[in-house]
């Protein structure tokens, strides 16, 4: 026997275990091993006192599935646990999670600093829709760290960005931008859909609110729409007078101050109590259950997504029909060093590449691949391709496309978990077709 004293170590569950178990206790659900789908709109009150207690936030529980639902609640807790967050709120889509986050944070007259490289729908929300609510935004290129600082105004309430921009794969220097935000007394909000918590936990790098479109890798199978916002719990809403709706008595709940009462979970509590009540972008329990099935295998899938993506980067980088390849795993990627720091478990499975021959070649490529699916989604188990300039980002004008880092030769590739040889063979078919019109036109 050894005399060596055993070092104390916390035995809290780790990532793969939490992916399967967090947020759910079978003994409180008739012993059901699988999370039950609570397909109901509403919940019986024990008596009038119980009803009042739920409405007054005196106790936990469910009133109406627009506000909360037990199946959705398991998903929320599971994602909060995986991200290292204090609380989470699931929504009907990633876009509604972003909208709810902004509306919980801001009022008319407020301002946000926003990364310019975002999903096209998100760009339109910040550029065109939020100004209708009196919320203005300044866009800054994701690599222009100092630009984020310069864009902050007196009425700026936060910084928002995608950690790895869609579709150009430019990486925000999250630790530095978090410091800029915190020095200004405002939170950093990060859309980490591309990463999932398996690849990066933004709270460990200074983010305050994390947002996911769960529709993508988290659910993983292209079956269900869902979104979520997660709170890190570190941001001090009471450090300044910028966030009165968090810190001052709220008329909608008997003079409640969310920051005083709920501290590290205040943002989520407000988003639910106010946002879900007033906007109502609730997630269906069936979709929550579908996402939970995906999360059970998240780490297994992400490993395969990433290894396939790295193989595809090598293949594309050496291909005669490819002009350029952008992926954080590529050694020549301008943010490779930052990627190694922020994404140690893998660089994700989104690749942008330029096809020789420009837009026409891109169209021919996409029209001829057979295995890869041409559609407006990412993060499916299956390989997906799209031509952003004519698809996901087609509502942008030429100048906005350029500012967002898009070009007409760009193909966006979401690498699936099929056999890598089959993906490459399929791409050969696409490339042959893409070369054909050029060969013809050269004759």
């Amino acid at each position, binding site marked *: 026997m050894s005399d060596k004293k055993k070092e*104390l*170590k*916390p*035995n*809290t*569950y780790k990532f793969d275990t939490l992916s399967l*178990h*967090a*947020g*759910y*206790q079978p*003994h*409180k659900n008739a012993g059901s091993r699988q999370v039950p789908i609570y397909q109901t709109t509403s919940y019986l009150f024990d008596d009038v006192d119980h009803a*009042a*207690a739920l409405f*007054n*936030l*005196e*106790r*936990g*529980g*469910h009133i109406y599935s627009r506000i*909360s*639902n*037990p199946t*959705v*609640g398991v998903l*929320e*807790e*599971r994602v*909060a*646990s995986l991200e*290292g*967050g*204090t*609380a*989470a*709120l*699931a929504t009907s889509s990633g876009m509604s999670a972003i909208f709810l986050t902004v509306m919980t944070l801001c009022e008319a007259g407020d301002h946000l600093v926003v990364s310019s490289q975002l999903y096209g729908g998100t760009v339109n929300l910040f550029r065109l829709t939020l100004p209708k609510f009196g919320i203005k935004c300044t866009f800054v290129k994701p690599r222009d760290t100092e630009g984020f600082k310069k864009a902050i105004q007196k009425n700026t309430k936060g910084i928002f960005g995608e950690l790895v921009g869609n579709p150009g794969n430019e990486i925000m220097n999250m630790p530095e931008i978090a410091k800029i935000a915190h020095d200004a007394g405002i939170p950093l909000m990060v859309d980490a859909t591309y990463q999932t918590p398996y690849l990066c936990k933004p709270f460990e790098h200074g983010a305050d609110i994390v947002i996911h479109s769960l529709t993508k890798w988290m659910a993983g199978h292209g079956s269900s729409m869902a979104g979520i916002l997660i709170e*890190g*719990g*570190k941001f001090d809403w*009471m450090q300044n007078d910028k966030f009165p709706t968090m810190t001052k008595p709220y008329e909608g*709940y*008997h*003079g*409640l*101050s969310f920051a*005083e*009462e*709920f*501290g*590290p*979970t205040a943002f*989520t*509590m407000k988003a*639910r109590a106010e946002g879900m009540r007033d906007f109502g972008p609730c997630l269906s329990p069936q979709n929550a259950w579908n996402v939970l099935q995906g999360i059970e295998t998240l780490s297994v899938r992400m490993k395969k997504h990433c290894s396939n993506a790295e193989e595809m980067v090598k293949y594309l980088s050496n291909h005669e029909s490819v002009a350029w390849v952008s992926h954080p795993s590529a050694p020549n990627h301008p943010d490779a060093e930052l990627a190694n720091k922020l994404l140690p478990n893998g660089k994700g499975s989104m690749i942008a590449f330029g096809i020789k021959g420009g837009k026409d070649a891109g169209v021919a490529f996409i029209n001829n691949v057979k295995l890869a699916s041409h559609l407006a989604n990412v993060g499916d188990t299956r390989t997906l391709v799209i031509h952003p300039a004519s698809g996901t980002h087609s509502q942008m004008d030429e100048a906005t496309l350029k500012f967002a880092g898009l070009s007409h030769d760009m193909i966006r590739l979401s690498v699936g978990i099929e056999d890598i040889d089959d993906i490459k063979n399929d791409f050969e078919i696409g490339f042959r077709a893409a070369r054909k019109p050029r060969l013809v036109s050269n004759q």
Partner: protein
Amino acid sequence: MKFKVNGHEVFASTGGRPFDKKKPLIIFVHGSGLTHMTWVLQTRYFAFHGYNALAVDLPGHGLSSGKSLKSIEEMADWVRSVIDAVGHKEASLVGHSQGCLVTVECTSRYPDKIKTLSLMGGAGAIPMNPELLSLAENNDPKAVDLMMDWAHGPAGHFGGHPVPGLYHINTGTMLAKSRTIQNTLGVDFRACDNYKNGFEAAKKIKCPTLSILATDDKMCPVKEGKKLASLIDGSQVDIIDNCGHMMLLEEADRVLTVLKKFITTNYPPLSS
């Protein structure tokens, strides 16, 4: 609300209702390194049902200013000062973990001021694991991680927070890390380790007392809680199955049901 005790600003949650001097006062005292927020699923009920529910942040904790108090005896005197500071003559006390040591000591010292005593996860003494104590005093965040591990029962480790979307262990971790660990948890752990008067203090308590214990509590096991309760005349004991030390969150509804019955019976609210 904010008020001053011994020249330092104190923060106390009032459960979302305005403080009203006409209503009877209940003071909730948190555990080591934590804050008023641990009580959110108990205080709001009492605040909406005829009481002033005051979940205090001990000095140097949460939103209260000043330095953390170094002994359980000082904390007990401080709780008595809170009663005076908010303009009341008497109060009911509710404590969790270290808060039980504080409220037991306070009740024994000031029997005329304390009308009922409710203890959650209490014991007559809380000797600290020397390595854990050392980690906390050296500002090592591992102390918080270990505390959160031990404080939650096997079921609590899976989550299942009564408030949809909240995750117990990470929330507790953030609370315990919200101030400098060595100045809150480190000082509190040392105060618990040094405190030896719990069993003697318990013998002096004559007011109605309730002990809520949990079968999977590793930090203050049922055996220790029962030992303390056996020294208090007429003490009630309620034991919760399949629950750890953080019973006020892990089994918030059960705790509230027991607490509600005990307090409203022995210290009635102001009727509306």
